[in-house]
């Protein structure tokens, strides 16, 4: 009977910088739940929106100042030693640059073998190899192709597959993939995304896919959370959010994506004018998008907008607050 795989309650991460310890809320009171089913959730946002910080909180790398992050009911940042071992097995990560994830002087096989020995617990070399080969085949590689190679001998797409295979070795229930295809060429991206789709179907693994690219997000995800300046402004089933965006930010974001459809050109070329006071937005009291929003009222600058549920979609915007409809 279900329960949640992941639950974030009011999670806030504050970074301090400068001589006077200026406080900067990189992630600001984020709520998010992921059911314990094989689902792919996209966390989307532009650079500086806090999406990677949020990923690091979920992985236990950053500890939030406020709120809590629960993995299967247990607080990720208060795990005991034995629980931590369990958590590392259950939750794995794939990062943007595969060349940065592997030591260039070590054969990639040693990473695979060490993971199998230390975390999966298979000590016998032959048995370990058999297991590694099976996992490599699920991402379209094989032990034979990988065994004697250094990271530099792989292309970016292949090495990213190795990184995914390494993450899969522990049979994780959840994989956090932070911009896993943004360094790859367009014609190779879809191959990696297809691997995610297949793993989800065949192994029942859930994914959190972190990206700025909404087209690839749509291609693989079930759910999406749109982040802006540290807050989640809209979240829900991806078809609903991206085909009928409600938050003004989601709307302008979607309109601005250059799609590979020359017919949409005239629409895209319609002039947009936005103000550019970015730094202030992080410390704004009310809605962080207010200074750019075409619908902003005085209240938007003063008070933080509530989270309103409209047809399965949660929107953090005053436009949808019940009393403003009257």
């Amino acid at each position: 009977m279900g329960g949640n795989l992941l639950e974030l309650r009011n999670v806030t991460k504050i970074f301090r910088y400068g001589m006077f310890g200026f406080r900067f809320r990189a992630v600001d009171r984020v709520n998010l739940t992921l059911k314990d089913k094989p689902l792919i959730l996209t966390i989307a946002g532009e650079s500086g929106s806090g999406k990677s910080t949020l990923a690091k909180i979920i992985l236990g790398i950053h500890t939030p100042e406020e709120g809590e992050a629960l993995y299967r009911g247990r607080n990720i940042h208060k795990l005991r030693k034995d629980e931590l071992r369990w958590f590392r097995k259950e939750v794995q990560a794939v990062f943007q640059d595969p060349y940065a994830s592997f030591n260039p002087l070590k054969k990639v096989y040693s990473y695979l073998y060490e993971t199998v020995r230390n975390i999966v617990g298979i000590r016998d070399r032959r048995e370990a190899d058999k297991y590694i080969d099976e996992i490599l085949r699920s991402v379209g590689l094989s032990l034979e192709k990988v065994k004697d190679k250094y990271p530099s001998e792989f292309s970016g797409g292949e090495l990213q597959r190795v990184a995914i295979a390494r993450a899969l070795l522990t049979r994780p229930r959840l994989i956090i993939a932070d911009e896993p295809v943004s360094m790859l060429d367009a014609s190779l991206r879809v191959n990696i995304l297809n691997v995610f789709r297949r793993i989800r179907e065949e192994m029942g693994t859930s994914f959190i896919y972190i990206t700025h690219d909404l087209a690839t997000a749509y291609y693989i995800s079930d759910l999406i959370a749109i982040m802006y300046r540290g807050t989640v402004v809209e979240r829900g089933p991806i078809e609903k959010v991206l085909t009928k965006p409600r938050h003004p930010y989601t709307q302008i974001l979607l309109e601005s994506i250059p799609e590979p459809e020359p017919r949409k050109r005239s629409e895209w070329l319609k002039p947009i004018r936005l103000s550019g006071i970015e730094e202030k937005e992080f410390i704004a009291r009310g809605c962080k998008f207010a200074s750019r929003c075409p619908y902003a009222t005085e209240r938007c600058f003063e008070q933080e907008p509530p989270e309103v549920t409209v047809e399965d979609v949660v929107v953090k915007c005053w436009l949808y607050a019940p009393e403003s409809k009257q």
Partner: protein
Amino acid sequence: MKTFEQSFYVDAVSGVVLEAYENEVLGIAGESGCGKSTLLRIIYGYTKPPLVVKSGRVIISTEHGDLDVLSLNLEERRSKVWWRYISYIPQNAMNVLNPTARIRDHFAEILRIHQGLDKDEAYKVAAEHVTQLGLPRDVINAYPHQLSGGMRQRVVIALALIMKPRVVLADEPTTALDVVVQRGILQTLIERQRELKNTLILVTHDMGVHAMLTDRIAIMYAGKIVEVGRTEEVFEKPLHPYTRILIESLPRLGDKSMRKGITGQPPDLRNPPPGCRFAPRCPYATERCRREVPELVDVGGRHYVACWLHTRR
């Protein structure tokens, strides 16, 4: 034909024939390592080792006749050609702005060399120019680090346009920026092109940007141009198998149907394959493709393709 030199040669841009017309936006598309940025640097005439041009010419038509860029030395290119006839907008604006100089002094430098203006005159011209491009007047008094990434890129674009050059080259001008900012900047770029009726050559790997902005598009693969045509036509009826796979592999909003990418990887250009460079990855490759290099031919309506499938004999 252009080549990189080390202890070996990399045939990075090979046998390229390309025309850009007056009053058009020409896109150059392709994936990392295909030679699109190298080609742009050659067009600009920024040919410093390790980049060596082994053969070929770059001609700019001007009101004073043809200008053979590569026949001039670097000093002549700098004083006579760059900024005035052709200008270059690089990907990372920070690389071209001097961090210790105010924006107005960047303008003053160019206006001094090419128009002989003194500082005060130059500042006035610069202020006028940036406001026309939708930037606040105060920008010219700022140092580069005081501006956001998008602002800096707009400044670099303003610099590139100040002399109203006939050809503007832009290499991934908005790749590092957010899509909303990107849209605003690209809109400015195209408005200016329409006003000056000059030629904008836009290099980007982002097929979406090509679809939104370019009149014609050239697709590059492994140092060669494989297809050139009107943008709508190339997107709707791609002829080269590489172009087709590239366009079909792009996920689109509102479409979850299964897509396929390309398998394998581009050839090593130190030792390129003898025939078509795409042949090792091409699902339609024949013996002939592996042996003979296909030429770029017009298949009608100035739609060019370099592929044996489309070459009648």
